[in-house]
């Protein structure tokens, strides 16, 4: 289990740029196309989607940039550490480059709707019935076609020629064009009973990396695993596990869409990250503009702690906890300014 986890994360970080290119390529085509279509259709109720710039900026700010955690050493062969002697300027240069690389590593994987099952019959040839006993799966191996547009057809023993389902497609593409970090048959870890064991070991990040490597972002399995992980994190308030990783944005998006933001808010206030708390509430207002706190905020143009107070009064379920946390934060701030 440990070996699996380490290998998964190493492989994931190693081929991030390739995955990013493939993922972002068709996300740009599909996701932004959908947004443009929706915006044109209804001018009034335009819900911001995951890909909007403003949303992405907010989520990126909230993810934080803990260099120690992002570049945490992945388990590789043991080598003695190398020491370099640098001047101040060189050190700054090195830190700047490290920040750039960390930003690249923190690019969030896309959040999409579930894909529709393919159900297209191309031909029905009754005269072929009974000629053979098994299915035939034909894959088009032309190298320059993107995987989404490949023809993968199945000829059933009863003569029906149909397009292959998504699972068959993924399997065939993995057989003929293997991608690093994917298996032909998805590992057993992704079943619900085994996800529980993974969560007990606090390895949410590893399992999410493995999930990104294995599944397409709009497959139902990918979405199910991600939702399960986010639910478990929210149940046990383990937000810090994902804080400086690229999954944080997705988790925040999920929670805000389902209005379960209280635990996260308490956690941010406990860690004295008021900016994060305000950006969380701004995101909430962007996504649910019809709620009361959003209207009040727009009228009063509130900032900072007032925004949080208004939000707490109107929207949250765990009012008491958040009030307590806010009080503790303000006392701590007063104490530090006094001393």
């Amino acid at each position, binding site marked *: 289990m440990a070996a699996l986890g380490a290998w998964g994360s190493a492989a994931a970080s190693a081929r991030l740029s390739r995955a990013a290119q493939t993922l972002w390529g068709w996300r740009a085509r599909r996701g932004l196309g959908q947004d443009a279509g929706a915006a044109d259709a209804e001018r009034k109720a335009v819900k911001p989607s995951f890909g909007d710039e403003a949303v992405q900026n907010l989520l990126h700010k909230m993810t934080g940039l803990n260099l120690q955690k992002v570049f945490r050493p992945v388990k590789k062969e043991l080598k003695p550490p190398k020491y370099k002697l640098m001047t101040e300027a060189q050190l700054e240069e090195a830190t700047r480059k490290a920040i750039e690389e960390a930003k690249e590593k923190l690019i969030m994987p896309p959040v999409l709707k579930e894909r529709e099952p393919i159900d297209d019959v191309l*031909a029905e040839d009754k005269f072929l019935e009974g000629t053979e006993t098994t299915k035939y799966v034909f894959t*088009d*191996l032309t190298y*320059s076609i993107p995987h989404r547009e490949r023809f993968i057809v199945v*000829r059933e023993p009863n003569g029906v020629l149909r397009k292959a389902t998504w699972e068959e497609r993924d399997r065939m593409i993995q057989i003929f064009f293997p991608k690093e970090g994917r298996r032909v048959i998805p590992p057993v870890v992704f079943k619900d009973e085994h996800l529980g064991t993974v969560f007990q070991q606090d390895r949410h990040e590893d399992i999410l990396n493995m999930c990104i490597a294995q599944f397409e972002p709009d497959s139902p399995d990918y979405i199910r695993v991600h939702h399960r992980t986010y639910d478990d994190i929210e149940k046990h308030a383990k937000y810090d596990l994902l804080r400086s990783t690229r999954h944080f944005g997705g988790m925040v998006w999920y929670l805000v869409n389902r209005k379960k933001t209280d635990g996260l808010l308490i956690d941010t206030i406990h860690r004295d990250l008021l900016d994060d708390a305000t950006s969380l509430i701004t995101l909430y207002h962007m996504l649910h503009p019809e709620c009361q706190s959003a209207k009040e905020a727009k009228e009063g143009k509130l900032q900072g702690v007032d925004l949080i107070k208004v939000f707490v009064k109107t929207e949250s379920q765990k009012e008491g906890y958040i009030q307590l946390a806010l009080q503790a934060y303000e006392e701590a701030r007063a104490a530090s300014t006094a001393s």
Partner: protein
Amino acid sequence: LFAGSRLLKGYRGGHVVIRFALGGCTNRPFFRIVAAHSRRARDGKYLEQLGCLDPLPNAHGERVAGLNLERLRYWLGCGAQLSRPAEKLLGRPG
């Protein structure tokens, strides 16, 4: 093109065919769909591999076949002929 494979063999006559080349181990056949001269050995030097066929059904009960359609069109356009089993295979997906 017919004297194209100039390394060693040159023939008299013969044409390009698209046929199956058998590979794999004992009791485990595996066909490669291949464009080759008709006079060549079945498993010998071919011009290009255009795909493969696994005649034994896998864990999901399917017989997996891959076809490089773009190159197939090229060879068929060049005037290659098909063997009987190759015709049957290519006739299935339509």
